[in-house]
């Protein structure tokens, strides 16, 4: 079941679009903000609410990079793996980050605290390497700052 808040947020955005299909991406992102990912159950609920088939919704969900159809940890660390960050040594920083957390890229820590995912250019190339945690940008990311930054996330 969609929560009251999820439903309210979705309904408040419906007026931005002339039909419910155009609302589907926004609706999935709203559900994801509340639950961390888009579950099979919420796809069925959204299908009912928006009058679209589950297959259509899933076809859209799987096209886009930021819609997750698998669970993640409490905090999602997105590491930019695009060209400027690559030049500035993001590969090394990323493997150090993964080693510290004891996971591989794409994995979730055993305590469910962090998931580390690659992401394309975050538009912070003049302060590479760039990392985004729960939507907050961290620029000039380097080995020395990993612990200090991760400590901000419970």
């Amino acid at each position: 079941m969609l929560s009251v808040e999820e439903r309210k947020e979705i309904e408040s955005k419906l007026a931005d679009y002339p039909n419910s299909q155009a609302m589907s991406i926004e609706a999935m992102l709203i559900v994801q903000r509340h639950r961390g990912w888009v579950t099979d159950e919420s796809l069925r609920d959204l299908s009912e609410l928006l009058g679209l088939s589950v297959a259509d919704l899933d076809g859209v969900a799987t096209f886009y990079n930021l819609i997750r159809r698998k669970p993640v940890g409490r905090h999602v660390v997105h590491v930019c793996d695009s060209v400027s960050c690559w030049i500035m040594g993001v590969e090394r920083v990323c493997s150090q980050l993964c080693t510290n957390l004891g996971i591989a890229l794409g994995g979730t820590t055993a305590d469910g605290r962090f998931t580390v995912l690659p992401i394309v250019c975050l538009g912070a190339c003049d302060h590479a390497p760039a990392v985004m945690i729960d939507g907050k940008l961290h620029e000039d990311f380097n080995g020395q700052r990993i612990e200090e930054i991760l400590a901000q996330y419970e």
Partner: protein
Amino acid sequence: MERPLTGNFRADREAVSLAEYERAGGYQGLRKALQMAPADVTETVKNSNLRGRGGAGFPTGMKWSFVPMGKDAPHPKYLVANADEMEPGTFKDRALMECDPHQLIEGMIVSAYAIAADIGYIFLRGEYVRSHERLARAIAEAQAGNYLGNNILGSGYSFTIHLHASAGRYICGEETALLNALEGKRAHPRTKPPFPQVSGLWGKPTIVQNVETLCNVHHIVNHGPAWFRKLSRTEDGGTKLYGVSGKVKRPGLWELPMGTPMREILEEHAGGMRDGLRFRGALPGGASTDFLVEQHLDTPMDFGHVQKAGSRLGTGTMVVLDDQTCPVGMVWNLEHFFAQESCGWCTPCWSGLAWTEKILFAMEQGKGSLHDLETLTFQTKFLAPGNTFCAFAPGAVEPLQSALKYFASDFRRHIDEHRCPWR
């Protein structure tokens, strides 16, 4: 030097508020435009030589002149700000939206007025959370000030703006794929014609314009096309946001006259290479542009001159390659991006780019062969303009084709030495 786009930025990089924006002369361009006939606004923009800042450089005023006007024109008409900025190495639109959100909004309203659009969308990449917060606040402020909504400033013209957060995919920046994404579909590009100006969002006339392009429009109306043309050092009008990333002393973003030479940007503004490093080349305008090298450093960075040098101005944000970074590795990183972001609609693109990436990866591991070099050259021809459904694939092979030309001996060393010499 005049800096219409960034001159109003606060030193602390917080968003300029509505009150601050108005105090600095904000929304004067809109007031002036509302006194003009829409066709005259389009004519003014045409005369300014403003060309699109999203990469292709299409003349903006000319694009607007294809929109059906008059009482028989279909409605609603749409104006979309392309704020998808996902071209690796590009960080200009984010700065414009975060630091001066009202500038984009005013540019949108004036552009919408010129084509008599009813509804606007800002198609914003999902990762730009700070831009989202600041634009949402600015839209609310503009609505409260009657710069948006019904009967704007008593003119009889009405226009609203909705903020759409994208769920992310590089192809969404391509304007027809963007329309499909806004409609809630998988973001495959559409066949052209029909062009969006005639049949775009939900089949209605639609103009899609880059953020930086839109930010110029009300300045042009306010100060006139001659003023705008004079800002430039060459024939393309205006200033340009130029960026530099990579191992230079001071990576960053600067608003400079259009046509500022590459060397001046790299040396005077970015401070030159870091100590001990040598310049080997640069992608002048993001990941999908051909490398330029030392011999091109005096090229004025505008559309025509960069094209003559064999590349594209693209987004105007350069990525610099130094002599301690492997050019083959860099191209592998770029093709990894393109292979991943191909929308999968047409086979030469999705299959060819996956193949290309695999070969480059093998080369980096010391497993490349001479035959692989031929295959890479073949791919650059096979994915050239005309062979794929959209401009994504030709852009994807631009850095590869130029790297094969300028860094041929580095490719050979990977093959002959069975290793990456930089590792």
